């Protein structure tokens, strides 16, 4: 077999692998859309659930998920980006910072149910926040932090060191260089990390299971100390805990969650490419 043939065979195999990877995703999206679209209507999106969730809408679950994502973002964006700035720009390479980095990498790999139990122990019980949006957001934030810290640190490190040197040589303090030059250049990467982290938070069931999610609560939360319904948990409930639930409602709920997550993804991509056009290297 000559080398051109080998190359053609290689290309064919790689294309096949790529298709195999993409196909299941397309299949999932397609089946959710096809089976769920019939359930989607104005009432489904804006009404409270009725008669044991078999009728009415999923409005409180949508609002609950949005509130949880918002709460998570408020907590973990400043902490995550701040931590990344510290690790990338200020921390010297010592055993302590190496241990911190190792911990962050490992935290990213912990199963989400463990975060759920941790949140139950720390926020719900010990800090007595109760089963609440606050406790749920904090739990999701802790789960999201490692993702944000490591992607943001990587984005900051990708900015060439020379920019910092130039800023310093013009009398800038370290912080002035970070604020004026490094951070704006790293922004696309940081935003990517933030969105990826928040997407995961939006779709997780386990961390909110014991910390915030309500089984059936047909009203909107009034304060951060209220429980709320949330899309992933609601989906889990109506798929496994409620006998005789119409299939279209289950798929309709899945479709709403999917669209929510995908549209956040699109927003992220647009924002990122907007900032990337201004990048200098």
């Amino acid at each position, binding site marked *: 077999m000559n080398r051109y043939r080998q190359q053609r065979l290689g290309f064919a195999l790689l294309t096949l692998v790529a298709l195999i990877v993409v196909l299941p995703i397309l299949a999932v999206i397609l089946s959710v859309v096809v089976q769920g679209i019939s359930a989607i209507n104005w009432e489904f999106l804006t009404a409270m659930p009725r008669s044991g969730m078999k009728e009415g809408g999923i409005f409180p679950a949508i609002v609950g998920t949005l509130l949880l994502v918002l709460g998570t973002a408020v907590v973990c964006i400043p902490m995550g980006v701040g931590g990344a700035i510290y690790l990338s720009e200020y921390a010297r390479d010592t055993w302590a910072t190496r241990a911190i980095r190792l911990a962050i990498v490992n935290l990213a790999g912990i199963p989400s149910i463990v975060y759920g139990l941790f949140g139950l122990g720390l926020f719900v019980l010990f800090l007595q926040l109760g089963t609440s949006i606050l406790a749920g957001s904090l739990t999701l934030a802790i789960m999201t932090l490692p993702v944000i810290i490591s992607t943001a640190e990587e984005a900051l490190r990708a900015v060439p060191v*020379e*920019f910092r*040197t130039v*800023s310093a*040589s*013009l*009398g*800038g303090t370290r912080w002035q260089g970070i604020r*004026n030059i490094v951070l704006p250049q790293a922004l696309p990467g940081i935003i990517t990390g933030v969105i990826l982290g928040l997407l995961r938070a939006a779709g997780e069931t386990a961390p909110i299971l014991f910390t915030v999610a309500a089984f059936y609560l047909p009203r909107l939360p009034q304060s951060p100390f209220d429980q709320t319904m949330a899309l992933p948990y609601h989906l889990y409930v109506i798929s496994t805990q409620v006998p005789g639930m119409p299939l279209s409602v289950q798929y309709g709920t899945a479709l709403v969650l999917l669209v929510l997550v995908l549209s956040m993804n699109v927003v992220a991509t647009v924002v990122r490419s907007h900032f990337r056009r*201004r990048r200098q290297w």
Partner: protein
Amino acid sequence: MDEQAAKIQVENVTYAYGEQEVLRDINVAVPDRAITVFLGPAGGGKTTLLRLINRLNDLVDNTRMTGRILLDGQDIYAPGISVSDLRRRVGMVFALPLPLPGTLRENVLYGPRLAGLRDRKRLDEIVERSLIRAALWDEVKDRLDDPANRLSGGQQQRLCIARSLALEPEVLLLDEPTSGLDPISTAKVEESLFQLKKDYTIVIVPHSVQQAARVADFAAFFLMGELVEQGPGKALFTSPQDKRTEDYITGRFG
């Protein structure tokens, strides 16, 4: 050279990155309002010494320094010295021109703005004066609000010089400022150096022996971390005292 005229005094400086010593017991006096050249083959410690003079190597971890560097008789490594103020007095131009993100105007004004200058009229004056001194004004005066990275390489390097001059430094350090430039741009940069030495103390690491000979009022020859010979430029290039200096400037090595 008499003690009075020395702007920068390097005294017994030894410097190491980790275990590797890159400067050994260096003593140099840099005269005021003249061009001083640090020449020698690569790895001689010239750039390191340059970066020590405005404390840019503070940004590097795991280094060791002994000895003193005096600016106008004051130890720049003494406790209580403001590094930001020092770097405003001692500007630096790097081998590769690196415009900051933003327009030409924003680049020139980066330093003054960080220093807290806000007056628009004053800032406009600084832009014009700095670009004129860097011999760039005529080429760019109509497009000050264009992105800086749209300039040619030679223009970018003169913009970087203007950016340093905007802070009205007393000393200008240049690390192979023409290494990436064509001969015409190089001539323009050298031309502006001749203008600048009337008002500034200039220290340059040249990118060739020829350039060193063209611009040097005073020269110091570095070889593998040691200072071999220093003296007035004319003397060092026409009648070097040390065999190694002679070998280098006549092109026998390096």
